[in-house]
């Protein structure tokens, strides 16, 4: 058998026992054959090792954490939101802060609270409640008083109580529909507080309208109305 055949049969796995022994003998005796055989064995090893390395590289790539843009998108979204929020705060009307700047609880100018005088009429009780911040009680008492006496102070303070209780829609009902004596101080103030209620309810149009009418007449809140109007623009 030719040396090439021995080598080929070796790699094909077809050497019989006898042939294998003969091949071994040949390798010992013929250095050229031994070299050729060694060469082909190295070729086999080389191809195999290259293949293994290639696969290993592929597998290493599987393990590599993929470049994730998730965080980038998350950060970008947050940035956009923060931007919007900030822009929104600066450029849009901040109703709450304006309201807080211009609203003041209207003081008790009717019945200065004097305790211990013995008189426990409804009016004193109502104003006592109002002065001590018990607006719930004040509300119910003023409502009662107005029902029986129809005096506009009761209506007015009812409205303020409602504002204190943050029931702005009800307060508006009182200030808009209530009948106040012409030229009474309560009439102009009811307009003012109506405007503030609209403001709190973020009804810019209505608030502006009421404030404008306030600027056109003489009343204690005219200056304030002008200022607030300017802020609203």
């Amino acid at each position, binding site marked *: 058998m030719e040396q090439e055949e021995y080598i080929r049969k070796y*790699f*094909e796995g077809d050497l019989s026992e006898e042939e294998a022994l003969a091949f071994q003998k040949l390798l010992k005796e013929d250095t050229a054959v031994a070299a050729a055989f060694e060469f082909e064995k190295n*070729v086999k*090893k080389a191809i195999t090792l*290259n293949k293994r390395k290639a696969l*290993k590289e592929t597998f290493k790539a*599987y393990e590599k954490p993929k470049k994730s843009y998730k965080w980038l998108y998350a950060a970008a979204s947050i940035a956009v939101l923060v931007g919007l929020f900030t822009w929104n705060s600066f450029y849009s009307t901040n109703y709450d802060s304006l309201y807080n700047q211009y609203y003041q609880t209207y003081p008790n100018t009717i019945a200065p609270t004097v305790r211990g005088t013995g008189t426990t009429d409804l009016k004193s009780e109502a104003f006592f409640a109002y002065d001590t911040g018990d607006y719930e009680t004040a509300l119910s008492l003023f409502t009662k008083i107005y029902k029986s006496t129809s005096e506009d102070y009761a209506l007015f303070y009812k409205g303020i109580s409602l504002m204190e209780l943050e029931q702005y829609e009800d307060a508006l009902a009182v200030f808009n529909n209530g009948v106040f004596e012409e030229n009474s101080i309560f009439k102009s103030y009811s307009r003012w507080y109506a405007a503030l209620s609209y403001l709190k309810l973020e009804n810019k149009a209505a608030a502006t309208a009421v404030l404008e009418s306030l600027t056109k007449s003489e009343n204690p809140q005219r200056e304030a109305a002008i200022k607030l109007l300017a802020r609203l623009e």
Partner: protein
Amino acid sequence: MKKGKHRVSFFIDLFTSCPTIVLMNNEKLLISSLKSDDPIVIKKFYEENKKGFVFFASRYQLDQEAITDIYQDAVIALIENAKKGSIDDLKSSLSTYLFGIGKFMIYKKLKKDKRTISIDDGEFPEVAFDMYEEEEINLQLALLRKGLKKLGEQCQKVLQLFYYEEKKLDEIQELLDYTNKDVLKSQKSRCLKQLKEIIKER
């Protein structure tokens, strides 16, 4: 009486082996995909078996990097044996076989690191594989590894089929559609000569 019994047991065997047959068909499909280097199938196989292997290997006190390394080598060995046709008649499932290889590799590594082993020797894979020690200082080998890349495509194909996939010339002749075996023989011979020339140029 005997005949009847045989007939019955035949059907019973057929029936009970049905699910096994289905499983085997899936495995056969998998093996042929691995043989053809299907990247999607390979990746899926890799990922599906990794968790289980890592869990299995964690009892041997090896760090994650070493376990991953061994796992990768085990999968590579499996693919290699698939290509050689060694696992065409595999009795167990591919995953079992894979774990067997991995276990063997762990055993070897622990031995190398001179660690005390408590591996049950009996459970090594049915099919062996060559673990070439890459630390071998073999200049010709190193040169060949580089030189092979410079060979033409046809040569690379022929040599790969013969030496790596351990196919016989008859088979290769059919696969690559050579007119006859002698034409193929001379082609292979030419390729080896070319390779010799390439590595001579240093």
